[in-house]
């Protein structure tokens, strides 16, 4: 049975299915909580994320490369052309990844250590080539985004309104990389695009009419 701890603000029981993740948003009052041993501390409050028409939900399970995962949290970001979701995929002892979902398009990417030196954001224009692990990655796209909201259990907290710039690279063998610049920090993710049925998901959300 997944660990459940009482919210320090409203007392509702907040699920902590992953023991490795110390941050969560209370699904009842929107408190951003940090787990300290077996009690929770509130770090502020966010508006609860509205349901969109996504078939995914916190608690959806699936398997990727033969390893089982569960979606524990969600970040929703907005940009000029709409919004997308990033779902945290908890593989237990097998690591972590993010399942990005935008207008019915899906990708799975894993955090990777940043090679030094980190390219300067100004240098990365569409077409720029970046050598990443001896492979050529080329900039396809750059976009600015704003965090609209967060939910569930996450490896870190993000405040709604936080801005970021994502640079998308396409690499060999259909792989892509995203270099994300936010709050003066850069993070690297490498992954690939796929179709949702590829992840053999269970416990998907039931959508009206489908």
């Amino acid at each position, binding site marked *: 049975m997944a660990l459940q701890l009482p919210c320090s603000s409203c007392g509702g029981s907040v699920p902590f299915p992953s023991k490795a993740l110390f941050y969560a948003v209370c699904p009842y009052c929107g408190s951003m909580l940090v787990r300290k041993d077996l009690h929770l501390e509130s770090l502020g409050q966010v508006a609860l994320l509205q349901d969109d028409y996504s078939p995914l939900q916190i608690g959806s399970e699936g398997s990727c490369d033969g390893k089982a995962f569960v979606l524990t949290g969600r970040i929703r970001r*907005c940009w000029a052309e709409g919004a997308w979701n990033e779902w945290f995929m908890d593989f237990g002892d097998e690591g972590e990844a993010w399942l990005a979902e935008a*207008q019915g398009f*899906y990708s799975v990417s894993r955090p990777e250590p940043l090679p030094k030196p980190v390219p300067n954001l100004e240098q990365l224009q569409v077409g720029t080539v970046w050598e990443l692990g001896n492979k050529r990655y080329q900039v396809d796209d750059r976009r600015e985004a704003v965090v609209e909201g967060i939910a569930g259990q996450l490896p870190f907290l993000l405040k709604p309104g936080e801005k970021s710039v994502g640079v998308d690279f396409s690499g060999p063998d259909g792989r892509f990389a995203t270099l994300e610049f936010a709050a003066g920090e850069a993070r690297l993710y490498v992954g690939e695009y796929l*179709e949702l049925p590829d992840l053999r998901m269970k416990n998907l959300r039931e*959508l009206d009419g489908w």
Partner: protein
Amino acid sequence: MAGEKAKVLNCVQCGGAVQWRAPGFSITLVCGHCGAVLDVSNPEIQVLIQAQEKTRLKPLIPLGTRGKFHGETYEVIGFMQRADGTGQYKWREYLLFNPYIGYRWLVEADGHWNYVISTKQKPHRRDKSAQYLNKSYQLFLTGEAQVLYVLGEFYWRVKKGDRVSVQDFINPPEMLSREWDAGEEVWSIGEYVEPEVVQAAFGIKAMPARIGVSPNQPSPHDAKYRRIFWAAAVMTLLLLLIQLGTNRSGRQDPVYVEVASAAGLKAAGGKLPKLAHVRAGGLDFLLRTTVSGYAGPYLNLDVQMKTPTGIDTFRVFQEFRNAAERATAVSAIADLPDGDYQVTVQPFSGPWPMSGEFRIELIPQRSQWSNFVGAGLLLWFYPLWLKFRRWSFNTTRWMQSDFAEE
């Protein structure tokens, strides 16, 4: 079978209720009442295009129709009429949606249909070809595409007079398409679908007739050609085995051997007493004559083979110029029909006295190839004709291309 529980929102231009079939997914929504194109990516709905051309187009598959395609249910949520750069050549695109799967397209042009998916990987583009998932596609055309009319909803922002450059690469029944503008490049992979499949999936009453050959339409002769080709190939192989088997068995032994003395021949008027029974099915034969005990400087033989009816008569002249070295004369008789032959040998020795002994042998030759070649030609006539049909189909296909087939 329409999705009954679609979300409804009000058009910010005319106030009419607009169905939103993929809320959260769609970014552009077209008001069915006033034709306004709305940006619904944010809660504050914006009008992208106030009104479209007055001529309302009725999609062949009505919006909201659900159909089972490739084992999955999809709902038609968007419709676009597009055209090439000149605006003359038009085609229609239907956006299919299933929230658990994503988007697909059905594209109809000249009554030909394609089932299209966006690629998960970026294909590798070369000068006149493109590579995708270990398959090569040949460049078929380069041009422009513009949006003439939209209905329903889309997952990107439809702009007025949206124009992109397009390239189609083909490997029938597939087509790889690249659409790009200054900002982005989008690739998709389409597969030719027989109109009846679309018709059955979405319950369409009447389909537009197919016109011409579409770029990635598989040749209707392909499957038949392949089948007939392999049948002919197998038959040819069998014939070849039989042929080789016949050859190997050799039949080098004479089927007819007769020995006669010069005196005996003279007495019988040249006629050999035994008839030659030929039962080989029109093989080539060698007539081998061995002369021994003849002392003169030269000798000519006139050998005749005649069936009793006289229909088949073969006559060969044999010369022996040098008694020592050319005691054996060999003549070929081609295509000797089956029958019983009377063999007549007339020796001429000029002024020199006739003497000695004659050994006449009829030796079947290695089986000939003419039957095999004849059978082969008959066998391959049909497949070659199909190949020609296929070739002319492909030629028609490539006539619409800006590029030559390579």
